């Protein structure tokens, strides 16, 4: 089993708000991230797949194919977008780094045929990242 990781970068804005909370609760729980005008990050995405090395190609996965899937499923949908308003998953889910990793996993997993998705890691800043391994 070999693990292979491909990186990509995208920039997007978001804010944290739960309509079921009172304005005070929203401010207390989410702090500055509750500003309804949003704020942005340069996200770094790392997608790790695992699999056996194909003896004919020497590949776990065709990197070009993985890159295209990541571009089509993630970057085209999220790069330079306001996540709360423009990415359907976040109409009902708060676009935290944790939920972003889950949403990206859910977009990628059905598209990957040959290699198995192992981990989605999303860096919100160089000092904060979330990992999702597809666990319930």
């Amino acid at each position, binding site marked *: 089993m070999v*693990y292979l990781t491909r990186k990509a970068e995208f920039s997007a804005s978001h804010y*944290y708000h*739960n309509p*079921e*909370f009172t304005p005070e609760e929203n401010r207390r*729980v*989410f*702090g500055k991230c509750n500003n309804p005008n949003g704020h942005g990050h340069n996200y770094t995405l790392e997608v*790790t797949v695992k699999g056996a090395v194909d003896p004919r190609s020497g590949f776990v996965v065709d990197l070009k194919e993985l890159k295209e899937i990541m571009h089509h499923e993630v970057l085209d949908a999220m790069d330079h977008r306001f996540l709360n308003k423009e990415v359907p998953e976040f109409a009902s*889910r*708060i*676009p*935290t*780094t*944790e*939920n972003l*990793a*889950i949403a990206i996993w859910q977009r990628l997993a059905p598209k990957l045929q040959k290699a198995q998705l*192992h*981990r989605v890691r999303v860096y919100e800043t*160089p*000092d*904060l*990242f*979330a*990992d*999702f*391994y597809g*666990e*319930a």
Partner: protein
Amino acid sequence: MKAHLTRRYRFSASHRLHSGEFSAEENRTIYGKCNNPHGHGHNYALEVTVSGPVDDRTGMVCNLVDLDGFVEKEVLSHYDLENLNTLQEFARNVPTTENLCVEIFEILQRGFRHAHLERVRLEETMMNSFEYAGGAETRP
């Protein structure tokens, strides 16, 4: 759904690697430059990984305010700009980065209640790092 969250912190401290169980010559052989009696320092980078179900109401594994507050109070304020050899936990234990990594894991394990502690990773320099997961294997 279960996710892992990792936060990175920085602190600077000095230490000297020296064990009372070795002779002066053995200490010099084993620890080399790190045995210099005057000590030397590092800019450490600390990564704390916690896990748990993502709360539907907040979208979070744990509120960063709680994690940052705990790490600041119990870890950073304890170690930042200190000489590790003068601290109680290193009175008998050599303050290698392995031992420091385990100490920090145990501080978090004892006191942090907002999420499950998965792993502590400590970089001593950009060239070396250490990980401890309480005896469990770390995950790729």
